[in-house]
């Protein structure tokens, strides 16, 4: 009996200790929440975290950030926002491509907010209803290996990738996810279903490699496993800065136009700290943040006029962006996903 009592007391002590640790951590969390704002971030953590830490330093407001993985590693924060809709935990959503934001708008997860910091951003990149505002854009590019492909010989259009010249030497990320899903939806919305279905059939026949992310495309091109690939500016720039044998071409400057993907920031409907959320949005849309993102390895293109753009990337005024209705493009995602699954054998 005595030994049983001793063991019972030991177990109870351990449980109390654990409860104490967890309780202290919960108390610390609730104290922090008094001057805090919660943001869910789909933009790559390596780029977004310094921006948010800077906001903390400047304002003294604690930023509780929830970051996302690559789109093929987990199902992402957009699903979390949808699941939490009845009782939101987040105040702000920062997305690195339009599709997620527009899905959330259609599910009534977002609230309208017109930030004064949005002044100067082109009207095409601001939601007329105020549910999202674009800033710091990326571009979809064709990356090529500089040891295997001369600059003059690199493909100039997305449609060139279906040429026999590049048979078995093209990589793209899975078009069902992330920025590639936005790109293909934009192409379908702009060029039409017949042309795009034919293109992807020819691409498939040309032996395209479909891999699980833009960074994998970049790595395959940089290592020379393929000669060219479709990816994003920030992915390629990381490799360029790392000294790898890779460069990029802005596609369709003469044709459809270059696909531009802005970051988008939105206020969450019924979030716990709406005022702090609005202030954070004002900060993210400021010229300072665009300058910071332009000068980082993210090489994101400022949308405010007069903000110095990133090195290695042409300024937005120097090329013709794809004329695009983002809402229309986002609405094509489900249909295009089904078409490509069949055409590409996904």
């Amino acid at each position: 009996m005595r030994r049983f009592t001793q063991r019972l007391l030991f177990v109870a002590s351990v449980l109390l200790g654990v409860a104490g640790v967890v309780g202290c951590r919960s108390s610390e969390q609730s104290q922090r929440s008094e001057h805090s704002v919660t943001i869910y971030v789909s933009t790559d953590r390596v780029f977004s975290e310094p921006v948010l830490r800077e906001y903390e330093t400047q304002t003294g407001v604690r930023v509780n950030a929830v970051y996302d993985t690559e789109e093929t590693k987990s199902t992402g924060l957009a699903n979390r926002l949808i699941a939490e809709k009845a009782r939101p935990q987040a105040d702000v959503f920062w997305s690195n491509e339009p599709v997620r934001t527009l899905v959330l708008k259609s599910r009534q997860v977002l609230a309208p907010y017109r930030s004064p910091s949005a002044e100067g951003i082109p009207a095409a990149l601001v939601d007329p209803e105020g549910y999202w505002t674009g800033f710091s854009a990326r571009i979809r590019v064709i990356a090529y290996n500089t040891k295997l492909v001369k600059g003059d010989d690199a493909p100039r259009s997305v449609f060139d990738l279906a040429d026999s010249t590049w048979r078995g030497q093209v990589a793209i990320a899975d078009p069902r996810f992330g920025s590639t899903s936005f790109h293909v939806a934009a192409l379908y919305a702009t060029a039409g279903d017949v042309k795009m279905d034919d293109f992807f059939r020819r691409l498939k026949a040309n032996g395209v490699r479909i891999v699980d992310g833009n960074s994998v495309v970049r790595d395959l091109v940089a290592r020379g496993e393929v000669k060219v690939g479709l990816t994003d500016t920030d992915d390629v720039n990381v490799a360029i800065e790392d000294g790898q044998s890779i460069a990029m071409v802005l596609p369709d400057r003469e044709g459809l136009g270059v696909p531009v993907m802005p970051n988008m920031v939105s206020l969450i409907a019924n979030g716990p700290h709406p005022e702090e959320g609005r202030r954070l949005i004002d900060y993210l849309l400021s010229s300072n943040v665009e300058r910071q993102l332009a000068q980082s390895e993210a090489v994101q293109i400022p949308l405010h006029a007069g903000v110095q753009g990133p090195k290695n990337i042409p300024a937005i005024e120097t090329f013709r962006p794809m004329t695009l209705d983002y809402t229309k493009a986002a609405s094509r995602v489900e249909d295009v996903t089904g078409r490509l699954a069949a055409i590409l054998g996904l």
Partner: protein
Amino acid sequence: MQRPSSRTVVISIALVLFVACCLLPIAYLLIIPLGSGTIAYGDLRLDARQQGLLRNTTLLGAGTALLATGIGAPLGLALARVPFTRKTLLRVALAAPVLLPPYIMALSWTYLGGTRGFVATLVGSDVIAEWTYSLPAAIAVLSLVFYPLSMLAAEVAIRRIDGRLEEAASLVAPPHLALRRITLPLAAPGVLAGALVIFVLAVSEFSVPGLLRVRVYTTEVFTAFAALYDFGRAVLLAIPLLVLCLVIATIAVTIVGERHVSTNRGLDTGAAVLADWRRPAGAAALATLALALALPLLVLVREALGAESLRGIVEGSGRAIANSLLFACIGATAVVGVAVWLGYARARARARVGQLADVLFVFAFAVPSTIVGVGLIGLWNRPGLLGAVYGSDAMFVLAYLARFVPVAALAIAAVTRYVPVSHEEAAAVSGAGWLRTMTHIVLPQVRLGILIAWVIAFVLAFGELGVSILVAPPGEATLPIRIYTLIANAPPSHVAILALLQTAVVLTPLGILASLISRRPSPRAQGLPNEADGRVAR
């Protein structure tokens, strides 16, 4: 009215916790599409493409379970019966591959075997790239990650076998026949439990097949969530996957059946030591270590050396490391705390009930982690006390309970079946209550199995991502969350460093634990009565 017995009370509590933690989140997500009336039952019909994907998934799961068992079970036999020196160190090293994230292991293999990989560079031409990106490669990679689960399950099962049976058999038959006719059949339930867990883990994978360009059905479920944001459709698409796991589990439990695995002897009754096998077993262990651990680690280290600065990458990971260790410890303890009673109940259940329990455990474990995560959000993200829990670190522990109680229960049930019922009957006749019998008779005999279940739960909890990323309180993260959110757009050298960091972090406490256990003198060394007579060593 007669008071319920302590056995009824304890097992009922465990059942209630299992239903609340493991089944309710799944049920909640089924209710949404049913309640909204938006179910398109046509989604349950698989087209030809989806049938092909399901075939691939089945092959991936079955191939991985078979190959991992083929590697792990003999190693488990060797650890149980061969007198290695430094056995604890060997066991920890052989178990280490399961600590590495499967995606990172697959990545290291592509660095090794890709078109411009290490092998191609060494040989001067691309000889194995085509094999590197294939279904057999995915099976091989996953097998090299998951074989430790089979190894640990097999070792525990074999160590529970009365060595006198093998000795008696060896008097009349050669060793290999004794192995085939006595040892392996008695170890089958434990080995099978390990194989089932591996099957479910393999069919749940989509990032490794994705990287190796193998099209699998699990991606369909993932697409419904990640590309289409359609929970109802994702749940419906998960049903064929769950049916597949249920079919495999039913076939497996039918084959093994309710074999009588215990004798009237107690534990640790002098195993038949296979001293003659030391050299070949040692060579096999070293070869496995070289292929499954040394080679991937070397590749990762080679990539990591390309980083300019270690500090920037590791800095800021302190809290995530502490979170992972703390919550994995608490989670594994909570998981085993519930699973030990469920496992006991399953081991003592009648044949049909027991088989049904096995199938239910496999079902609960096979549910995709995203479904569990979204279900947890729906259940806990509510006003009041539930909401207070939702915003706290307790959600990590709830996530681990939801995911891993079934697998721990399977593992503990397998080892509890080796404990003779006659021991409990003898204790009851002597006047001991059920709780006293459990704490003094049954649990001491299965303590190794409980420890292994704790280790498996700890490893799985530590590496858990799918549910954690959905329920982590804002501002908090575990190490896998931090790593996977950082590797998006990080150079390969940074990815390698973070993977090595995770391995070191989880290997260190396990190594210390194993070292502490191995230093405890055995009862015989202490001159205490051994357990062969059924008395428990004090």
